[in-house]
């Protein structure tokens, strides 16, 4: 028996060392670091925030389960609810102003750029400059320009005969939020402009030539051919505006107006409310559980917006093969 076995072993050709078809460990190695960091520092904190919002802190530092108690407080306790609804309303106004000013302006600039006038490259590059700057810097720059102390805005309006129009907009309850929104529009209009411009460029020239042969004028081509084809991009711009409105706008308001959203909370938004609730300010001590509750509410509000976009808007916007 043993003989037979050794025999067969020896009869084999000398085995050249050959690599086997690989296992699949490399897939794990490729994925693990990204998934790990992302899970620990992004997904886990989100879930943990949701969890924290279901507890209430005691004076001895321990936490007690309150279910939706914090949410009830936020939405109905007179002290909280007025601030919450005010902040949410301000956020929606902010969003609205971006939708009616920033995005149409971005569309206009992109449409003009896509006509490839001379210096298009220079215009594009320069209009994008504000987007690169820190919101903090932008905030201060505009604060100085609009400041009655310096009087730059006043002087310039005066020069064109509109001096009577001037008011310290950032300090007035009626105009502060609009002023902040327009500063944000000024800073970020480059992003929709670029996205829409890229979409316009991706429309094949032959299609536009065909429209021209069909007798459409430049304006008609824009409305009847280009616009329908870039609708998906406009959808993306809208949802990006919605999300950015809850996050990026904090930096601007915090640096121009501070954490209280003055005057009289007229520029208080969800971001400043969350910051204040979490860390506290003069009259109020910080509360991580209420802070987590505000954050979770923002999460749900964003989720609602994203869902409306995905279900209601995106599915209806046909993506054409180009």
């Amino acid at each position, binding site marked *: 028996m043993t003989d037979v076995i050794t025999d067969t072993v020896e009869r084999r050709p000398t085995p050249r060392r050959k*690599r086997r078809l690989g296992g699949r460990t*490399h*897939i794990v*190695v*490729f*994925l693990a*670091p*990204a*998934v790990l*960091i*992302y899970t*620990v*520092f*992004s*997904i*886990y*904190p*989100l879930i*943990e*925030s949701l969890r*924290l919002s279901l507890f209430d802190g005691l004076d001895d530092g321990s936490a007690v389960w309150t279910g939706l108690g914090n949410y009830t407080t936020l939405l109905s306790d007179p002290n909280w609810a007025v601030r919450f609804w005010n902040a949410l309303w301000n956020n929606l106004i902010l969003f609205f102003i971006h939708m009616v000013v920033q995005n149409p*302006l971005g569309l206009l600039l992109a449409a*003009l750029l896509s*006509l490839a006038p001379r*210096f298009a*490259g*220079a*215009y594009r*590059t*320069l*209009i994008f*400059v*504000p*987007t*690169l*700057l*820190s*919101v*903090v*810097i932008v905030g*201060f*720059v*505009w604060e*100085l320009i609009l400041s009655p102390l*310096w009087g730059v805005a006043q002087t310039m309006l005066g020069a064109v005969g509109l001096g009577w129009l001037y008011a310290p907009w950032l300090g007035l309850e009626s105009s502060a939020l609009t002023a902040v929104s327009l500063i944000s529009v*000024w800073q970020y209009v480059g992003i929709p402009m*670029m*996205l829409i411009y890229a979409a316009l460029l*991706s429309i094949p020239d032959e299609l536009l030539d065909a429209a021209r042969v069909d007798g459409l004028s430049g304006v008609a081509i824009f409305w009847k051919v280009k616009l329908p084809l870039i609708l998906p991009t406009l959808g993306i711009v809208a949802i990006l505006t919605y999300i950015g409105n*809850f*996050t990026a706008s*904090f*930096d601007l308001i915090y640096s121009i107006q501070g954490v209280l959203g003055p005057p009289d909370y007229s520029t208080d938004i969800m*971001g400043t409310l*969350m910051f204040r609730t979490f*860390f506290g300010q003069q009259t109020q001590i910080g509360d*991580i559980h209420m802070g987590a509750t505000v*954050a979770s509410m*923002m999460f749900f509000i964003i*989720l609602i917006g994203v869902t409306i976009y995905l279900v209601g808007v995106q599915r209806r916007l046909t993506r054409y093969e180009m």
Partner: protein
Amino acid sequence: MTQTAPPETRRSRRGRSRRTGAAAGVHLVLAGYTLIALFPVVLVVMNSFKNRRGIFGDPLGLPDARSFSLEGYATVLGEGNFALYYGNSLIVTVASLFLILLLGAMAAHALAEYRFRLNTLLGIYMILGIMVPIRLGTVAILQLMVDLDLVNTLLSLILVYTAQGLPIAVFILSEFMRTLSRDIKDCARVDGLSEYRIFFEVVLPLIRPVLATVAVFSMIPIWNDLWFPLILASSDATKTVTLGVQQFIGQYTVNWSAVLASLSIAILPVLALYAIFSRQLIAGITSGAVKG
């Protein structure tokens, strides 16, 4: 001869004049908006080189012999610690970008290249973060950083920014990698390269242009962020430029030349970099990556 020519000429002449008129309109709008976009920046930088009297007396004038002054810069460089802040911002931005690009490309490669059971699910999980801002988890992130003893370290910012930048990086890169020819990777396999070397030696060189785009996309929000430096790393040793400027201005509100100088110090390097890289940046933004 002359009788047959007119209709043709007239039509083309009218067309031409309408076209010149339209072109002028286009330039009017674009140039006008370009002025609006640049004016505040120019104004601040210009006035930062003036003395107090020049700033208030003639805000719109160029600095001249009487108003030129570097007093603002002297204050900033004397009082603020801007070299350190710049260093911090640079470390945080570069390290985060490196991790986002490397880990993002690795994950995107795995998702685009290999068939495995959790592929689709994991892909959706990774890009969830595009929709949900990481800031909403701030409460828990701060606790986590306290537990890990990372508060007031640059590492805490790097980790958070990496987590924040990964979803969009994975999304853009995996979309692009799916369009890469399968042949070239197969060819490398036939040539005997391991899966790791295929990634580093074949795939990475092919995606370099897209990596640049992702780098630009990820860099701006990191460099400009105020929220996380404020919350996680506000100590003097770990301040970033954005936070440094913000706090410096808070202290020196009445010293206008110092405020303007500190703003200019924050703006000018970014503009210089932009002047160098704007071509790549714009090409990146308008190229295939965002059409998807």
